[in-house]
């Protein structure tokens, strides 16, 4: 059986390469950005050195098996009793040391590169006119979804405070708040400031860079960059409790023009379903008290249902922003839904929001609203979205309303969301 070892080992190398060749969206060896490429360029030669050392040791073992094995000991058959050889031992102390020193030097260089950031200026049109934006996203983890906050005014970032308590629970108001999908311009160094509202999570988009933990009470710097437009998958990688496996995210990299378009759309308040404007105005003016509702279309009824069932946790800018005061969860937050339908996934990045043909995936959305716990185990209401016991009609109406919270993402992004 020992004879099978070498072929088996070789086979496993072949299988290894083959295994990496199929379509694996989270593959760490298929970089799509500058930093992940740097990491890949460092580790690939080290993998080769490691393989060589392993085959050297395995080869020596097999050689000795072939050359020196005996089945039974014969009386008097003793080899030379060698107790050691200083020159050899010095050799296999210093050669590995030299290899390690070389690896260490390259590691050191890359570490300083990966931790350095540059000051960039990307012109962005905001409500206040054009600003020069050093691309920067504040990433906030909580059980079990990611929030992305965009501050176009760099001074606002100074207000992030890492003093006492958990400042992530009381962040300054951002220009754009979105969830589940990190939208970024291509070609730019996008700085991340990563924190958490509850337990430790880890933000990881393997194609764009390694991971960085989201630690409550800390604002950890990191950066990502994408070469080409596309949708890059990620997964929370620090065990964060019950539904850790169902905490995912995607980075959506857009051309600068598309990114500007996205920013413009996100800066606007949510669309109001046609015919519900008057009701919404009254609702906002009444500051949450009872207002007689229009009941004509599903989207109109959905808007009302949203204010009745969802608005205590979820914010839709232009609907409940006047009354919204955080969610009831331990984290104090629930995904911002203002432009919900402009994303391609929901429920913490785990469900597709659109079908491959581009139509809304009503099935996913309905089953999520029907019983979130069945899709994503949680400890609602403290952690995760509770089962609200909604009727089928209400679910239908809510889906109609949520679909209006666009703009709809591009066909390319919808197609890229499909994993196969």
């Amino acid at each position, binding site marked *: 059986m020992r004879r099978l070892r070498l072929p088996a080992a070789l086979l496993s190398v072949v299988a290894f390469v083959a295994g990496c060749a199929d379509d694996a969206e989270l593959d760490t060896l298929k970089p799509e950005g500058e930093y992940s490429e740097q990491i890949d360029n460092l580790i690939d030669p080290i993998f080769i050195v490691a393989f060589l050392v*392993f085959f050297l040791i395995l080869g020596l073992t097999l050689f000795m098996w072939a050359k020196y094995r005996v089945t039974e000991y014969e009386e008097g058959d003793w080899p030379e009793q060698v*107790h050691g050889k200083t020159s050899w031992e010095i050799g296999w102390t210093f050669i590995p040391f030299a290899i390690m020193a070389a690896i260490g030097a390259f590691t050191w260089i890359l570490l300083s590169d990966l931790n350095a950031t540059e000051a960039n200026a990307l012109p962005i049109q905001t409500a206040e006119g054009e600003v020069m934006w050093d691309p920067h996203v504040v990433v906030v983890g909580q059980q079990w979804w990611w929030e992305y906050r965009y501050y176009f005014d760099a001074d606002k970032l100074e207000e992030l405070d890492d003093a006492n308590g958990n400042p992530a629970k009381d962040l300054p108001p951002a220009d754009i708040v979105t969830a589940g999908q990190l939208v970024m311009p291509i070609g730019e160094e996008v700085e991340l400031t990563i924190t958490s509202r509850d337990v430790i999570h880890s933000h990881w988009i393997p194609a764009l860079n390694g991971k960085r933990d989201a630690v409550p009470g800390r604002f950890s710097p990191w950066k990502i960059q994408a070469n080409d437009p596309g949708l890059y998958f990620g997964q929370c990688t620090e065990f964060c409790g019950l539904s850790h496996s169902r905490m995912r995210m995607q980075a959506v990299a857009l051309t600068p023009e598309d990114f500007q378009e996205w920013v413009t759309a996100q800066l606007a308040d949510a669309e109001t379903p046609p015919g519900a404007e008057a009701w919404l105005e009254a609702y906002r003016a009444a500051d949450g008290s009872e207002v007689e509702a229009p009941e004509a279309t599903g989207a109109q009824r959905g808007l009302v249902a949203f204010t009745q069932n969802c608005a205590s946790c979820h914010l839709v800018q232009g609907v409940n922003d006047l009354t919204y005061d955080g969610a009831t969860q331990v984290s104090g937050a629930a995904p911002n839904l203002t432009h919900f339908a402009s994303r391609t996934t929901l429920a913490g990045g785990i469900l597709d929001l659109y079908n491959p043909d581009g139509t809304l995936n009503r099935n996913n959305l309905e089953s999520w609203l029907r019983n979130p716990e069945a899709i994503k185990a949680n400890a609602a209401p403290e952690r995760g979205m509770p089962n609200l016991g909604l009727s089928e009609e209400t679910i239908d109406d809510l889906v109609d309303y949520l679909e209006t919270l666009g703009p709809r993402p591009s066909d390319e992004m919808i197609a890229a969301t499909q994993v196969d």
Partner: protein
Amino acid sequence: MAITEEPPLELEAGDPLPEYAEQPLGVLTRPSGNTGIASWLFTVDHKRIGIMYGVFAMFFFLIGGLEALAIRIQLAVPGNDFLSAETYNQVFTTHGVTMIFLVIMPLAAAFANYLIPLQIGARDVAFPRMNALSLWVWFFGGLFLCSSVIIGGWWENAPDGGWFNYAPNHGVAFSPSKGIDFYAIGLQITGIGSLVSAVNLIVTCLNMRAKGMTLFRMPVLTWMLLITQFLLLFAVPVITVALFFLMFDRLYDANFFNPDAGSDPLLWQHLFWIFGHPEVYILILPSFGIISEVIPVFSRKPIFGYKVMVFSGIAIGFMGWGVWAHHMFVSGLGPISVTAFSMSTMLIAVPTGVKIFNWLATMLGGRLKFNTAMLFAVGVVSMFTIGGLSGVTHAVAPADTQQTDTYYIVAHFHYVIFGGALLGIFAGFYFWWPKAFGYKLNERWGKWNFWLQIVGFNLTFGPMHILGLQGMSRRIDTYSEGFGFELWNLVASVGAFVIFLGVLIFVINIFVSQRQAKHLPPVGPDPWDARGLEWMTASPTPEHNFDEEIEVQQVDEFWFRKYDIDDDGTVHRIATGDEVAQPGTATGVHLPAPSYWPMVLAAGLPFIGYGLIYNLWLCVLGGLLVAAGSFGWVFEPADDPDAHHGGHDDHGDHDDDPDTDPEAAAALDAPEGADDVAIESEEAPVG
């Protein structure tokens, strides 16, 4: 018992002991006798304690193994619902905690207890009753931990924060079940066992060596075990502090790890990994020691570079304290710390590599006999190499940001802990089985055991390298289709069952071999033509270990009593092992007497644990048991004046120089004087 302590009163040798000392507390008579279950439960014999460590650890190995199978069933296919997320998180947590604290550590303790006294030519460890205490404290602590699976509902109350149990996810807000309370208290209890054992074995190594057995004549195994005990001595207090904080956070609303109150959750990570990384070496060094004994015997050569082997072990032990933050490369430590720990982690590969090359050089030019023990030992050399090399790839901190918390890490540490530590322990089983039980394990079954285990192991954990590099996260209860994880997960799950079959064959082998042994001649003291002092007495080892003290003149003393090397380097036999070995037939050897009290004391601790979690009145019960155990112990003379052992005449000569006489030295240093453990040739007439 080899060890007696002086009674609390100053007595002249030969004086009758006062009544209360013979019947401590005036209620119970002392356990006595060498047969039956009581002779095991209350024993203070290091060999029986070692065997019990092994048996109990194998019981926990079954539990941890079944948990592993449950994990692999759940992950065999995407989107599986064999285990719910809630159960899965408990299962992977208890799998890790069980395998580390209740399987590998105690299996190493089994070898340490059984072999250290034998390898240094002593009659027992320095403090035999403390040895019993460490066994029972550990075992009851283990049962306490495992009971969380049952108490309060089947898989409702087990710890669910991972063995690393990061803050603040371990807080009541995020883990409201009692599981993490069990974790915090259970590991404090087993930690007491580890600490007691560490102190005991360190004193044994330093004070109980036979005449001429200098430190640099100790076998490599004893050296590695000694280093392990020092690591335990310094590492266990750190985790105990962390667990103590955690216990207060959870039970009494303290805020050591609560970020909302301004605490830094990284405090837990630092404390945990300052313990946790030396822990890795606590797991692996005993196995390095075992194969350093096995490979020379089955190569017919001495270990290559004895001193380098010892010093590289010491180097690993030291450097193991300077690498903990490599578990935290992505936690946001800052680039300076990350760089420093990245460098130190690479450096530790050097002494580890030295060991691997020294084992290979030991085999070079030898006469290699690949029986099961040797197969397992050589298996360690190649499998641990894979684990070591993958370790280097994530010492490279930028690469680690891609690899950490993926299955690549799971693959890595299983190659280290299973491929290194556990395979080495199996090598030890096959090698020392005849010494402990008087019969060899069957080689046919043994080879099936080895090959199934090694093939299953590689099937299970080899593909995890690929899964990790493909981006599969650790600690996820399920995964989605389409990310390329399906094939290799299925392969890994099949492999897990092959491992299970391999271990099952080991268990069958024990029974098969025991039956066959009845029809075979006795194995004799030295079945392998081996090198260490443990082979210089009868098999199974007699209760008193050695009939008379051995005077040691060199490394591999026993071998040099059998063989002589000519000036031209040829080896000549001058005696057979049977001739050199002691017959083990001495009578009247003064041995430490069994005692109830270590077990009584140990039994109190889980009650205190349950009391802290459920009802403080149980603490009173536990406290009473601890108090009764302590008082009984204090008032009980270490040796039983009623036992027949030729009287106390052998206490006569205490005028030796304490610097050279381990007996006298131990008696001076130790509160429980170790005066009788060291062997006095005059007390044991050779039969």
